[in-house]
C-alpha cells in the first residue's frame, strides 16, 4: 500500500474538505519572526488557582473515570453558573453533559438530533467545524450568509427564506467566531419566532458569552419558550483560557441530553477527570480573573479596531469574542492573496476570511488575543503593507 493509496478510507471522509486554516498554518509555521493574529485562543495562561486545583486532584489520586455525564459537583457548579449569569435553569441530574470541549458537544448534538438528510441552517462566516460536524452526522448544512451591512448579524428573513420541510435545526453562534458579531435580545426574539413557527431546535454555541464587552449577554435559551428547543453549548476554553484542557458542556432538554449522553458514554466514556477538577475551581473562584481578562481584551479590541480603520481596513466595533473581521475589498485582492502577501512581505499572520465560508471572501480575521506589544508591532507592519500598496497615505 502506498502513501497515496487511500482505498481503505471511507468515501465520505475523502470527500470532506480539509480546513483552509491548515494551509495557512503550514505557511506561517515555516517562517521566522512572524507576529500572529491568526490564533483562535486566549493569549493568557490558565489562572494558577485552576492549575493548582487540578494538581491537587491528581495528588489526591482522583485519576479514575467520572460519571459519564461528568462529575456531579461540576454539573451542579455549571448549573449554578448558568442560572446566575444567564438566567437559564438546568438540572445537574439530567439536563447537563460535560464534554471534551465545546467541539465534542457540537459533534454529539448533531449526531443526537439528525436523521439522514435533515437540514441544519448554518450562518456563515462561521467557525470551521460546524459544516463537517453536520455532514459527519448525516445531516445537510444549509448556508445563510450574514452580511457586513448588518454588522454580520443574521436577519430573521434570511433564516425564513432558507427553511424547507426538511429543516430540523438552526445553529447559532454569538458572539461569533470569526466576525465578533453579537446578537442582542431583540435579534434573538425575532429568530425565536421563526423557530417556534417551524418547530425547530436551536444549537446555540455560546462559548464566547463571557466575552461580550459592551452589553449584557442574553442566552438564546433564556428567550420565552426556547429552553425546550435549545441545546446550549459552551465551555471553559475561551473565557477561562483553558483551550488545552479540552473541557466543555451541553445543556438542554432532558430527552436530548439523554440521547447525547448515550453517544458520549459509548464513544468517550467521560471527559478527563483532572480537567473536570480544574474546571470546578474555575467556576468556584475564577470569575474575577475572567473579568480581568475580559477588560484586557476589550481595551485591545478598541485599539485594534481604531488602528485598522485608520489604515483603511474598515471594520465595525465587534461586540464580543476576540476577533475583528476587517474588509480588504479596497485592495482588490482575494482574502487568500492578501493574507499570503501580508505574511510574505511583513511577517504578519492573519486568517483569510474565506476559510470561514464563501461569504468571508473579501475579509480577514485578526485575533487580538496577543500582547499589546505584539499588536502594536503588527499594526505598524500592516500599515506599512497598506502604504506599499498605496492604499493609505501617511499623515
Amino acid at each position, binding site marked *: 500500500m502506498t502513501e497515496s493509496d487511500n482505498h481503505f478510507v471511507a468515501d465520505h471522509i475523502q470527500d470532506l474538505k480539509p480546513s483552509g486554516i491548515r494551509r495557512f498554518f503550514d505557511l506561517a*509555521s515555516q517562517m521566522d519572526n512572524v507576529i*500572529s493574529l491568526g490564533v483562535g*485562543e486566549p493569549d493568557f495562561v490558565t489562572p494558577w488557582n485552576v492549575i493548582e486545583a487540578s494538581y491537587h486532584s491528581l495528588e489526591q489520586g482522583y485519576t479514575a473515570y467520572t460519571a459519564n455525564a461528568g462529575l456531579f459537583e461540576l454539573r451542579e457548579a455549571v448549573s449554578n453558573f448558568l442560572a446566575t449569569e444567564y438566567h437559564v435553569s438546568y438540572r445537574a441530574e439530567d439536563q447537563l453533559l460535560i464534554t471534551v470541549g465545546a467541539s465534542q458537544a457540537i459533534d454529539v448534538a448533531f449526531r443526537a438530533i439528525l436523521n439522514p438528510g435533515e437540514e441544519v441552517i448554518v450562518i456563515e462566516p462561521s467557525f470551521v467545524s460546524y459544516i463537517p460536524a453536520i455532514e459527519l452526522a448525516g445531516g445537510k448544512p444549509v448556508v445563510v450568509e450574514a452580511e457586513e451591512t448588518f454588522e454580520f448579524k443574521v436577519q430573521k428573513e434570511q433564516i425564513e427564506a432558507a427553511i424547507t420541510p426538511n429543516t430540523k435545526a438552526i445553529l447559532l453562534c454569538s458572539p461569533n467566531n470569526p466576525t465578533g458579531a453579537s446578537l442582542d435580545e431583540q435579534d434573538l426574539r425575532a429568530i425565536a419566532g421563526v423557530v417556534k413557527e417551524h418547530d425547530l431546535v436551536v444549537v446555540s454555541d455560546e462559548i464566547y458569552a463571557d466575552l461580550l464587552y459592551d452589553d449584557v449577554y442574553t442566552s438564546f435559551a433564556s428567550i420565552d419558550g426556547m429552553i425546550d428547543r435549545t441545546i446550549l453549548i459552551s465551555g471553559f476554553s475561551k473565557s477561562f483560557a483553558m483551550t488545552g484542557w479540552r473541557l466543555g458542556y451541553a445543556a438542554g432538554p432532558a430527552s436530548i441530553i439523554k440521547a447525547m449522553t448515550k453517544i458520549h458514554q459509548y464513544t468517550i466514556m467521560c471527559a478527563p477527570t483532572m480537567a473536570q477538577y480544574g474546571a470546578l475551581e474555575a467556576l468556584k473562584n475564577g470569575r474575577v480573573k475572567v473579568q480581568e481578562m475580559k477588560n484586557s481584551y476589550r481595551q485591545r479590541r478598541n485599539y485594534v479596531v481604531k488602528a485598522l480603520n485608520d489604515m483603511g481596513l474598515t471594520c465595525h466595533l465587534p461586540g464580543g469574542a476576540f476577533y475583528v473581521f476587517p474588509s480588504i475589498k479596497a485592495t482588490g485582492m482575494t482574502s487568500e492573496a492578501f493574507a499570503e502577501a501580508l505574511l510574505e512581505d511583513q511577517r504578519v499572520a492573519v486568517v483569510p476570511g474565506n476559510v470561514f465560508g464563501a461569504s468571508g471572501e473579501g475579509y480577514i480575521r485578526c485575533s487580538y488575543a496577543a500582547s499589546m506589544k505584539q499588536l502594536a508591532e503588527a499594526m505598524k507592519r500592516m500599515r506599512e503593507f497598506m502604504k506599499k500598496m498605496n492604499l493609505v497615505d501617511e499623515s
Partner: protein
Amino acid sequence: MEAKEIELLQLLESNGRLSDETIASMIELDKEEVTAMIERLENECSILGYSTLINWAKVLNEEVVTAMIEVKVTPTRGKGFDQVAERIYRFEEVKALYLMSGGYDLSLTIEGNTMMEISRFVSDKLSTLDSVVSTVTHFVLKKYKHDGVIFEDQQDTDKRMVVSP
C-alpha cells in the same frame, strides 16, 4: 473617580510607557482627553511618578543588596507612629515603609550597595532613634517576584500554535 480614570491608572500602572495615543484608543477617548486626564491626576498626586522595574541581578557590576527590617517602636504621645515613621522614611535608602499589625510595628525595605552599608544604617541610624525598641534585619537572597512581576526569564512564553481556528 470615574471608570475611565481608573482604567487609565490601571493601564499606566502595568506599563508606564504606553503613549497617550495608545491609551486613548484602548479606552475610547481622544488623545487630548487622555493627556488632560493624566495631567490632572498628576496634579492631584494620584499619579506620583513613573518608574521602571529593573532586574539589577542581570546588570553586571551593579550589585544591590536589599533587606527587610522589622522594627518595634514606642509611639509618641499625640503623634502615634507617624513621627517616628517620618524620621525613618526620610532616609533615602529606605525604599518602603509600612505600619503593620502583629508582632512588630514598622516594616521597612532598604537598599544598599553592600551588606556592610545596610548594617551600618541599622546600627548607626535606626537603632539609635529614641523610639526604636528593637530591630530584626532579614537580607533578601533572591527576588522571585516584585510588584506583580515574575523575575525568572520567561523565554518563548507564547506556547500557542501560530494559526488555529
